[in-house]
């Protein structure tokens, strides 16, 4: 019987069926659920690694030692894991090794629109691109087989609209793939120059062999319809093309790299006009153009955002679809009760330059909190604050702060802190320790004391870690805003590196049922509105609390100079 599965769920199923034994990942939208679904199969041991580099290295170790293994990440996570990937392409694998990388065209939840197919080509790692949940599952199985057959890691590339769509899947049984014996093989796994030069020759041979075999792998297919237009496409874009251009003949690439150039030549010969429809970069278009075949692509679709049926239709002269009306936007906001609200309220009050990072708190760049001034990549806040002091001097540093979450700090903030101490910086770092990886939907990390199965795990002690690096460390509950303000003032004026750990659990984790706040005798001064809490609403008559949204955190009580807001505490 068919089952409706999220693309990410189907990949986990495919991994299970393929006999995968080990999964190491770092969460990142839209890839996170793959690893979460994997963890529901006892046959696959899963873990959240501190970052994608460690995840891929760990999965690689399992592969080298004979087990089928995988790692899942979002597109920017592959940048972090690029170092092991580029050389794993030389060494090849023992047990099958596949990286599941999810791109995010239109940046629903990302800081850039980079195209994983570029990195795959740079690293010479083959790419599979499924187009629905069934293919997510089937291609996953295939990827592990091919990884072993061609002795290379594989990338299975997803996009948001594939990862987060549900469609029917026919499931199958798990195949038993025993762990292969470990064999010492210095020529294959020690990439010193002498060995690497030989392996580089192998990489090129392998790629040529895969291209030659491409037709027999059954991953690419041609559907001939009209002769006037032939479209080359892959992934979820294939689904858009089917609907937008029903008359067009289609070459659908399941193996999008290496490109089966013979298949392209044959297809091009059968159509009057050849077009590549691809999201983001014009990679296939350029490769086909380099073959000397007349082809178009990006002139129709551009490089930005997601494609869709209407975008393709309109690009090819179809009727324009209706547009979304201009109405008040509803941007995402920090949840009621979120401890970041308290921290950022204090940072704003102190008029600090906030070098921010990647997490829910990136939302603090928006009004009414609007006190975050940068968000570049995971862990960048610390290095950037150090660099800003180098440029602007000590006094600027007294008015600056690096802010990042617990998980982001562990991911790639630690080395930044080491540098800050080592290069004699005078900076203040605030670690928003809400005891969870929040934005991606509550994953455990080394600082939470629990593993992916929510079992107790050795807990990283953030304060001891920061102290041992050489920072002055203060732990403070951010919900006590006055205390936090005093601590920050002191630390900003301290020479050297200070770390303030603002520790309070994520509001969504706090299961206490608390009485919502009440307003009596409001003078409508608007002071409480500065918190930017979605549960506080204001009319001409004064402020009201939306009891359905309020979580009773009590932050607004301290904001009111007239004592008009009260909050009752815990409800039992």
């Amino acid at each position, binding site marked *: 019987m068919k089952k409706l599965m*999220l693309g990410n769920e189907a990949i986990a199923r495919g991994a299970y069926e393929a006999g995968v034994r080990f999964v190491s990942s770092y969460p990142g939208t839209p890839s996170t659920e793959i690893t979460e679904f994997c963890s529901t199969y006892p046959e696959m041991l899963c873990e959240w690694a501190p970052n994608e580099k460690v995840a891929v290295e760990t999965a690689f170790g399992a592969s080298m030692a004979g087990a089928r293994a995988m790692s899942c990440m979002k597109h920017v996570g592959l940048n972090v894991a690029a170092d092991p990937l580029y050389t794993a392409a030389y060494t090849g694998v023992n047990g099958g090794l596949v990286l599941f990388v999810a791109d995010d065209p239109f940046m629903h939840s990302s800081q850039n629109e980079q195209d994983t197919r570029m990195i795959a080509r740079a690293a010479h790692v083959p790419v599979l691109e499924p187009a629905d949940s069934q293919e997510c599952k089937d291609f996953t199985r295939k990827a592990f087989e091919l990884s072993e057959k061609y002795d290379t890691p594989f990338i299975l590339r997803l996009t948001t609209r594939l990862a987060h769509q549900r469609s029917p899947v026919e499931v199958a049984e798990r195949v038993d793939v025993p762990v292969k014996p470990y064999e010492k093989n210095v020529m294959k796994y020690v990439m010193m120059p002498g060995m690497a030069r030989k392996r580089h020759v192998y990489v090129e041979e392998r790629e040529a062999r895969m291209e030659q075999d491409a037709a027999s792998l059954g991953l690419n297919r041609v559907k001939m319809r009209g002769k006037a237009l032939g479209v080359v496409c892959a992934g979820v874009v294939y689904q858009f093309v089917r609907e937008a251009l029903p008359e067009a003949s289609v070459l659908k690439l399941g193996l999008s790299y290496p490109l089966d150039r013979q298949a392209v030549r044959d297809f091009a010969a059968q159509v009057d006009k050849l077009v590549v429809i691809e999201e983001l970069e014009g990679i296939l278009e350029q490769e086909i153009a380099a073959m000397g075949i007349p082809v178009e692509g990006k002139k129709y679709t551009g490089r930005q955002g997601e494609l869709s049926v209407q975008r393709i239709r309109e690009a090819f002269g179809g009727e324009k679809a209706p547009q979304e009306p201009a109405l008040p936007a509803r941007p995402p*906001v920090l949840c009621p009760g979120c401890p970041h609200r308290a921290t950022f309220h204090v940072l704003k009050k102190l008029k600090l330059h906030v070098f921010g990072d990647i997490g*829910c708190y990136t939302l603090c760049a928006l009004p009414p909190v609007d006190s975050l001034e940068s968000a570049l990549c995971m862990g960048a806040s610390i290095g950037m604050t150090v660099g800003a002091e180098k440029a602007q001097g000590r006094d600027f540093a007294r008015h600056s702060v690096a802010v990042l979450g617990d998980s982001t700090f562990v991911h790639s903030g630690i080395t930044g802190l080491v540098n800050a101490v080592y290069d004699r910086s005078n900076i203040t770092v605030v670690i928003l320790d809400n005891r969870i990886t929040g934005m991606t939907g509550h994953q455990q990390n080394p600082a939470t004391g629990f593993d992916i199965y929510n079992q107790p795990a050795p807990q990283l002690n953030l304060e001891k870690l920061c102290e041992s690096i050489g920072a002055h460390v203060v732990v403070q509950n951010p919900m006590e805003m006055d205390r936090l303000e005093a601590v920050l003032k002191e630390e900003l004026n301290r020479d050297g590196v200070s770390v303030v750990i603002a520790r309070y659990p994520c509001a969504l984790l706090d299961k206490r049922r608390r009485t919502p706040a009440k307003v009596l005798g409001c003078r409508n001064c608007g002071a409480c509105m500065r918190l930017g809490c979605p549960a506080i609403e204001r009319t001409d008559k004064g402020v009201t609390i939306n009891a359905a949204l309020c979580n009773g955190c009590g932050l607004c009580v301290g904001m009111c100079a007239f004592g008009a807001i009260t909050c009752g505490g815990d409800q039992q």
Partner: protein
Amino acid sequence: MKKDIIIVGVGGQGILLTSKILGYLALKMGDDVKVSEVHGMSQRGGSVITHVRIGENVASPLVTPGEADLVISFEWLEALRAEFYLKPQGAVIANTRRMLPMPVIMGKAEYPERQITGRPVYALDAQKIAEDCGSVRAVNIVLLGVMSLLTDWPAEAFEEAIAANVKPATLETNLKAFRAGREAGRK
């Protein structure tokens, strides 16, 4: 059955569960189906949109603007925002409750005072109905109850799909909410 459905609301209102139930049901009834969801950043109280496409052979996971048969909205402003997805006689099922977005809360924008006309509209205070059934969380199932009137699928199939997708402890409340939604939709 062939139906393109857009489900909209505010992050945290239980929209994903609704689309999951609909997808499950479509498959049970022998149709092809694709559901497209938004996870991550957009769930923090922002606008959320889910596409449900039911038919014989569904390709795109996204509904094309101007072609939807139905918009189900958990909040009034979001219904107005999603109306452009509908084809000329496409219907709207909308919770009339308002949730003020941050620009309105801050006084930077005004909540639109607008009705939807020229098409079938089922506007109801689904929150009140859900509360009367025992849980404010059941707004989604109330709206699903109204929606069930616009399909040729039997109510029993809906109830079975609800049972298969909600926590057992909430089943009774949800079934009550579903029936109350059907009742309200008939009025």
